[in-house]
């Protein structure tokens, strides 16, 4: 091959690289290994993690131990889905494009908003992307976020907002662990570009979304709701309650825990935001023979066309994870998502009662709830020794709940599991059936 090129050696090909910036030595890394050795090494590392099958875990706080059906693994491992890149050539990418279109439809159904994109990175950066859209749309300078918004979402919003030159102000929770409507109403002013709430909120509280939206939009700010898509199977959709933009973390939809990623974020909004959305959007069209087909559409929003005028800089997103999401939703189906969400709902309330501890959010909750644990260190010590993980300690993110424990319940946590945690937490007995 060198001959055809007219080069004498491989080195000749790098003649443009000035000597002074050449490495001049080997990269200082261990020598390459065979497949078997790399497998053994990484399996050895993996064995040093206590994963969700190694313990009974009530840990949630943004990612949840749901059962991922086997067909998702099978479909995602197909080279046809696994190994193409972004569908730039629609004629040979109808599979991926139609998946995007179906994904958009499912997200639109769940959120009650007419338009959805085909995924963004993940939850908290989706929240930040909504902030950017609010800036483009309103040209205002302030963002207001409920403390019921995931701490990571608030953090990501703050980080990104520095870039687009906005400030983020927080609205406290009530004594019942819900967003304080009055405080929200008070926090917005004519400079407020958007308000951010979460449904259910970080503590698992089912928020009065309509009231929040009304209060938050008082001065013309956009209302952004971060939502867990699974409870949306039984909760009134944000789009029906005055929410302009609904974003969220998609891990709960057929994605692995993966120590935090990759998963996907979703981004749905009212029709009027369609041309300001971030990320890829698939649209339906016809080919020259009149055949139905799908394309990447409204690309004039995107960085590769619009460059510095783009509505976002996102390029590579989470197509494979979003595929898992739409397959999962189709697997659950119209009735299944209701059954699953109701099971979670009932178990969540059962668990809160079974634990018999002081509830931080005593009102309606789904999938998660927060309690005060008098001897929280002791509980963790006892529980971990028995391979039970009681949940997420709120102290780091919420000094006001120093002794707070956030307990997540999914369809994988049986009543028996819950009773076990209750016993560890010192509850006298379980709840009567």
């Amino acid at each position: 091959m060198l001959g055809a090129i007219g080069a004498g050696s491989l080195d000749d090909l790098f003649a443009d690289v000035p000597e002074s910036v050449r490495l001049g030595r080997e990269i200082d890394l261990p020598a390459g290994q065979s497949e078997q050795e790399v497998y053994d090494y990484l399996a050895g590392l993996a064995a040093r993690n206590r994963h969700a099958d190694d313990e009974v875990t009530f840990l949630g706080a943004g990612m949840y131990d749901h059962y991922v059906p086997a067909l998702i693994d099978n479909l995602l491992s197909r080279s046809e889905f696994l190994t193409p890149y972004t569908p730039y050539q629609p004629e040979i990418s109808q599979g991926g494009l139609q998946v995007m279109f179906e994904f958009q439809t499912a997200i639109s159904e769940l959120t009650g908003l007419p338009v959805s994109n085909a995924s963004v990175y993940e939850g908290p950066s989706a929240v930040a992307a909504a902030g950017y859209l609010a800036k483009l749309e309103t040209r205002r300078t302030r963002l207001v976020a409920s403390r019921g918004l995931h701490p990571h979402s608030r953090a990501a919003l703050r980080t990104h907002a520095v870039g687009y030159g906005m400030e983020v102000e927080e609205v406290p929770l009530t004594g019942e662990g819900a967003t304080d409507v009055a405080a929200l109403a008070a926090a917005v002013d004519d400079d407020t570009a958007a308000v951010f709430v979460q449904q259910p909120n970080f503590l698992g509280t089912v928020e009065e979304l309509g009231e929040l939206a009304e209060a938050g939009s008082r001065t013309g700010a956009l209302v952004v709701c971060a939502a867990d898509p699974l409870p949306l199977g039984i909760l009134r959709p944000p789009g029906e309650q005055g929410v302009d933009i609904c974003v969220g973390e998609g891990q709960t939809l057929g994605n692995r825990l993966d120590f935090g990623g990759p998963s996907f974020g979703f981004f749905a909004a009212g029709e009027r935001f369609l041309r300001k959305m971030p990320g890829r959007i698939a649209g339906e069209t016809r080919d020259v023979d009149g055949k139905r087909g799908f394309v990447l559409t409204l690309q004039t929003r995107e960085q590769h066309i619009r460059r510095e005028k783009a509505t976002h800089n996102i390029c590579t997103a989470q197509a494979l994870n979003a595929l898992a999401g739409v397959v999962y939703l189709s697997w659950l189906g119209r009735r299944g998502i209701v059954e699953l969400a109701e099971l979670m709902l009932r178990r969540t309330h059962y668990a809160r009662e079974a634990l018999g501890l002081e509830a931080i959010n005593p009102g309606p909750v789904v999938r998660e709830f927060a309690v005060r644990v008098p001897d929280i260190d002791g509980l963790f010590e006892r529980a971990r020794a028995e391979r039970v993980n009681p949940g997420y300690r709120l102290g780091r993110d919420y000094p006001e709940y120093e002794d707070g424990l956030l307990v997540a319940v999914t369809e994988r946590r049986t009543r028996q599991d819950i009773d076990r945690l209750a016993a560890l937490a010192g509850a006298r007995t379980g709840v009567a059936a």
Partner: protein
Amino acid sequence: MTELDPRAGEQTVTVFERSRAGRRAFVAPRADVPEVDVSELLPASQLRERPAELPEITEPELVRHYVTLSSKNFHLDEGFYPLGSCTMKHNPKLHERVAALPGHARLHPLQDPEYAQGALELMWRLQDALGEIAGLPHVSLQPSAGSHGELAGLLLTRAYHEERGEHKTKVLTPDTAHGTNPATVTMAGYEVVKVGTAPDGGVDLDDLRAKATDDVACLMLTNPNTLGLFDRNIEEIARIVHGVGATLYYDGANLNAVMGIARPGDMGFDIVHYNLHKTFTQPHGGGGPGAGPIAVSDRIEPFLPSPQVIRRGGDNGAGRFDLDYDRPKSIGKLRGFQGNFGVFVRSYAYIRSLGGDGLKDASQVAVLNANYLKARLAEEGIAEYLPIAFDRTCMHEFVLSGTGAKEKLGIRTVDIAKRMLDHGVHPPTVYFPLLVDEALMIEPTETETKERLDQFADVVRAILEEAAEDPEIAQNAPYTTPVRRLDEAGAAKRPVVRWRPEGE
């Protein structure tokens, strides 16, 4: 043959249209807690009135739907995919296996570090390896993709300057830059200033000098650049940029050309992002996921995102790995949790498989393959129509211009690309970089064989020869794909972005 194909006119249907009331795949686990009525547990105001219209479908039909859809995709495991700038290299199947190990895939991101030592060690080792490869000591794995890394880079730049009390408003990007670069600049609150390209394809130094003013915060550069050319003046560029107190940012999308050969850190870059999904093998996934870790020099380190993966105590395996949140100057979090760990597992498997010399081999062969294919496409019968844009030894990719074909044959780059679909190869990146008319940007990668390169050259030649006889063939291509040219303008004019039931 179409007239004998009873399925020729078949229209695709969405999964929603396959729905039939009463069918299901999912079966709920046994209800083991009291079946309290939902209305007792949720306020009426927050109760959904009608179920989300998700499909009702059985497992076999669900599988068939997506298997059938999948078969309409061209993919890397099917054939050659020289999509310039995307580094479509083979992702060894091992990577999927190790990523799927329950100890990785089923690990909760908030697991106590004490019980996640394996994961943290993997991240720590990956940081270490990436730092060594780029020649910059401090790595954050957090950004979710390249463009996210770019944003992180500019937020770091801003934090760095702010700490020094410097207020800067502009960021320089070459006119060859990838679209994410200027888009990032805007998102990061800076103004874009374009720098021109010299006749040799590198940065126009005069233009750079003119535009490198005190209010410039950063120059974003990829080297080799998007023309596939290594900028010989990189040291001078660094001097100019640093001279005005700006940072030099390395867009790592093209790192695949120079691993083990030259390191961005040694070239003078302050901040680098890696596209793990390009250089360090990910499955591509139809457009993701990926990850865009960043590496920085000492002076930028204090501002890195939080948390950082660190090792406390003893050096030789004796240490304990932890997440460090105590980073007072940090720009904060860019996203949830610690980043795309599943992506890290794959990339680290890759680095361990290849080792230091293997990575260098990879870059060398990537460059060899590109130059070989460039030579094949410089042959008579091709080069007249598709001249190389900047005729130098290229690195891992190169750019042709379709002007000759347009003028002499009446076919445009898009036509050539569409006709390639019939030949079973994926077209190169087209119409980018913007600087080159009717551009075709070709990146073969090192995992391709000589036969594949030769076949591609043959395909290009065949298309051009065919067009010389009858340009309409290319102009109306493709013919053999599941659908043919699609009405993209119509799709954008009257957007249909979700399915709706009849009558809705």
